[in-house]
Structures are given as structure tokens and as C-alpha cells.
């Protein structure tokens, strides 16, 4: 189940917990999204994520379920921050475990594309140049569209 966390997340601890005790998994791929101190040349002091508690987790879990149905996975996890995030902190952590590495890479990649374009979260950057609300980029939608033509593996 996907979780939404109000406060710092520790990608290393999440990765270790995800790997612990597995002797059936050959490959674990993780994605960590970090808050950058500048985007498009604008300094960012705080990134604030708005979420709809309950609804957002449900929607993220549905995206996870899509990935599980699409790929031959042993396990999959997604943790997303909400609230205020500082540069250098993790915003999102995704991990996929499979017997073989291609499946794990594809599933983590797929889930990130879906979270970027379909998870009900709204991102705001505050910095010396003021406040800016962010939307998924055209490149995010193009990335997500890659999967429309593909079949299960």
C-alpha cells in the first residue's frame, strides 16, 4: 500500500527494510526524488505538497496495483511526502522487487511516470522570486504515454 508521510523520509532505511530477508528476489530498483535548490533557474527555499488525505493514498495505491498487474513483481512500494520539504530532502521513494532486473527497472519507471502524472498531489515552490504552483511537465506526460503501447512482462 502506498503511504503519504508528513515529515522526512529516509530512502536508505526504506531500501534496507524493503530488501530485508528476501531470498526470492534477484533485483531491487529504487527511485528517490529529491527536492532541488533551484528549478528552471529559480531558487527554491521550500517545496510544499498539498494532498487530500485518504483520497491521495487510495489513488496512489490504485497506481501501485496497476503496476503489480502489469509486471511480474514480487513486491512494490511507494512513499510520498506531503507538507513542507526543504532542498536536499526526499520527496518520493519507490522500490520494485522482481526475480529479474528488467522487470524491476520497468516497474519502478512505470510507477514513477504514473505518480508524476496521475497522483493527486499539488506542488508549490516558494523562494526569493515568490510563489509558484507546479504542474506535471509535457515530458512527464510523454514519459507516461510510452506505456500505452506496451504489454505485460
Amino acid at each position, binding site marked *: 500500500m502506498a503511504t503519504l508521510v508528513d515529515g522526512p523520509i529516509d530512502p536508505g532505511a526504506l531500501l534496507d527494510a524493503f530488501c530485508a530477508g528476501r531470498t526470492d528476489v534477484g533485483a531491487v530498483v529504487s527511485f528517490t526524488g529529491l527536492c532541488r535548490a533551484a528549478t528552471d533557474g529559480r531558487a527554491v527555499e521550500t517545496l510544499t505538497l498539498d494532498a*487530500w488525505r485518504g*483520497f491521495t493514498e487510495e489513488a496512489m495505491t490504485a497506481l501501485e496495483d496497476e503496476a503489480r498487474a502489469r509486471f511480474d513483481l514480487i513486491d512494490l512500494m511507494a512513499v510520498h511526502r506531503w507538507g513542507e520539504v526543504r532542498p536536499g530532502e526526499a*520527496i518520493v521513494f519507490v522500490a520494485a522487487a522482481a526475480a529479474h532486473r528488467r522487470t524491476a527497472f520497468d516497474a519502478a519507471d512505470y510507477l514513477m511516470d504514473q*505518480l508524476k502524472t*496521475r497522483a*493527486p498531489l499539488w506542488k*508549490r515552490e516558494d523562494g526569493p522570486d515568490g510563489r509558484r504552483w*507546479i*504542474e506535471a511537465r509535457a515530458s512527464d506526460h510523454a514519459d507516461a504515454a510510452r506505456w500505452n503501447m506496451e504489454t505485460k512482462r
Partner: protein
Amino acid sequence: MPRVLLFGAFADVAGWREREVEGASTEALVAVLSEHEGLAERLARPGRMTVVNRVVVRGDVAVTPEDEVAFAPPVSGG
């Protein structure tokens, strides 16, 4: 009256996140919300998300006074 929830830039521009608004359909609610000039401009942009009782809907959907209706801008997770 339906309970209206706003998220992201919509809440920021409106200055509130939750309020009862008079209206018998989602577009009727949008019309009332659009009396606020900044919100009108935001609500008119493409990709707006409309959610009635936690189910995403498309087009104009009838609502009752007991319904919860959420409006949100395009998402930006990850």
C-alpha cells in the same frame, strides 16, 4: 448545500480549502466559484480535476446538498 473542497493553487488563490456552496451541478458550482476573479481564471484552465464523493467525474454532473465536491488543478506528484 454541497460541501466544496479546493486543492493546490485553487485553495491558495481562493483563500479557503472547504466551504458550502449553493449549486445543483458541478458546473453550477464552478459558476459560483468563478465570481472570484483569480479563481475563475484558474478554474477555466485545461486539466481541472472534479471529484464528486471521492469519484473523479467528467463533464457537468448533478449534485445534491449532501454531496462533497472537490476541484483541483492538474496534479504534480513525484
